């Protein structure tokens, strides 16, 4: 299954946000989108999943999804978007409830998703009882339960502290590689992009255009090594130099909306 996003132009009223951005995600491929703040990264992700309507452009999904896939394009949110009145298990079951599934299949999917995210023993906890990292695990379990084809992740780790982020990112990567799930991963963090992505799409300042697309040939499993680290650091340096000036002027910009 392949997801193709083609945005000719997207604008909020007068303000142009994206211009001529197209990207394709093939099965099992992880694409990171990176760029200075306000460059339209999240907007692009919203368009990719059909949550935002592009002013001009379209999104295509080619090929058939697996039979057990209930929601091919599934988001993982920065703020987790959990229902605070539901327990962990009921939050995970939430996207299944309006589908025709028998109770046993539903329970099996929920148990499976909880087990794969290490949440099995917290099934009855309420979101307020969990740490930020555990809450995002619930968000991940809720995404896994529909067996998605492409995960759309909007800075899924940026609401977490640095240590939690490190741990969760490794779990993320494990899951993505093991399930061979495709993903678009929006972030402003170079380390995350360099650790996870097969391909990094660098966007320019608003209106966001594609500034550069970098393929990383090195398999994710081998990126922890010494020489790999050095190579990636060099690449990170290069990416940072691409957007440093823009990032600093974006940061000094006064919002006029």
């Amino acid at each position, binding site marked *: 299954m392949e997801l193709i996003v083609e945005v000719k132009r997207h604008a909020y009223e007068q303000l142009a946000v994206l211009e001529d951005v197209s990207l394709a995600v093939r099965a099992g491929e992880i694409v990171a989108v990176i760029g200075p703040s306000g460059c339209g990264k999240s907007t692009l992700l919203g368009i990719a*999943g059909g949550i935002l309507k592009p002013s001009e452009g379209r999104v295509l999904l080619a090929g058939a999804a697996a039979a057990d896939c209930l929601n091919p394009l599934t988001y993982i949110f920065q703020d987790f*978007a959990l*229902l605070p*009145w539901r327990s962990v298990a009921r939050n995970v079951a*939430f996207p299944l409830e309006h589908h025709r599934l028998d109770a046993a299949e539903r329970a099996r999917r929920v148990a499976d998703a909880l087990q794969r995210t290490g949440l099995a023993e917290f099934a009855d906890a309420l979101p307020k009882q969990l740490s930020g990292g555990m809450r995002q695990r619930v968000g991940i379990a809720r995404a896994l339960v529909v067996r998605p084809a492409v995960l759309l992740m909007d800075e899924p780790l940026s609401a977490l502290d640095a240590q939690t982020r490190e741990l969760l990112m490794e779990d993320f990567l494990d899951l993505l590689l093991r399930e061979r799930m495709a993903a678009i991963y929006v972030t402003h963090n170079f380390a995350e992009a360099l650790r996870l992505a097969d391909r990094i799409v660098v966007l320019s300042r608003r209106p966001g255009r594609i500034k550069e697309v970098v393929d990383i040939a090195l398999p994710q499993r081998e990126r922890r090594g010494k020489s790999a680290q050095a190579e990636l650091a060099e690449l990170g340096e290069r990416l940072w130099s691409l957007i440093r000036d823009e990032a600093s002027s974006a940061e000094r910009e006064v919002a006029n909306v």
Partner: protein
Amino acid sequence: MSEARIAETPAAPAPGREIAFRGGGFLPRPRPLQSWLAFAALLALWQAATGFGWIDPVFLPSPLGIAYALWDLAVSGELWRNLSISLLRIGSGWVIGSALGLVLGLAMGLSSLSRAIGMPLVSSLYPIPKIALLPLLILWLGIGEAPKVATIAAGVFFPTAIATFSGVDAVPRSLIRMSQSFDLPMRSILWKVILPAALPSILAGFRISISTALLLVVSAEMIGAQFGIGAFLLAAGNLMQSDQLMAGVVVLSLLGLGLGALLGLVEKAFLKWR
């Protein structure tokens, strides 16, 4: 030179000024014993004041006198006859007003059109003291139960509509977008996301509307009713039966407390997740 010295850790701590604790106070704690003691002391003082003849019992009957009057009213069935009819009016008026208020509040929260139409109406009608509408409602609905129930319903309607509207309006957009991203049908989003998320605000509105209903039932019954707590209070006042009057006031206080406690239980049951 001096900077280097500051950075050094002294081998033996030099004698110095101890920092005084200054972070105390401003920490309210529940003190149930003191609450009850103060209440009992006030009652005792009141009893003494009337018992020693410092206060004329016609103006302020003693607590024991009020208790006796309450007992007599309860035994004779007069209390229940008045209370039941008031409860019926409160109950029916509150249910009607709340149901309509919930519907309008939801509509205003969900649709821009009903918001555009409803908001100016609600804002201009809310400040009217609803008891001022009773004569008009009598004109429309005749004498009897209908105008009293309608007055209470009108009083309950507005706070409920406003609380529901603001609750629905404040539902985090992220939860709605999340539901849409899983293709939830509109009806499921309403029942599973919007209503539960708006519930705290709706229940807060109920707290206001219950006291409004209590206020209006007494006022309406004082203006025109044969029975009911309000009518009873007015009659007792006219006959200078201040012990019965005070007994009625005590009943109202207990009624308000009871309804508040009931709502507290509902909040406890439904808002555990907060």
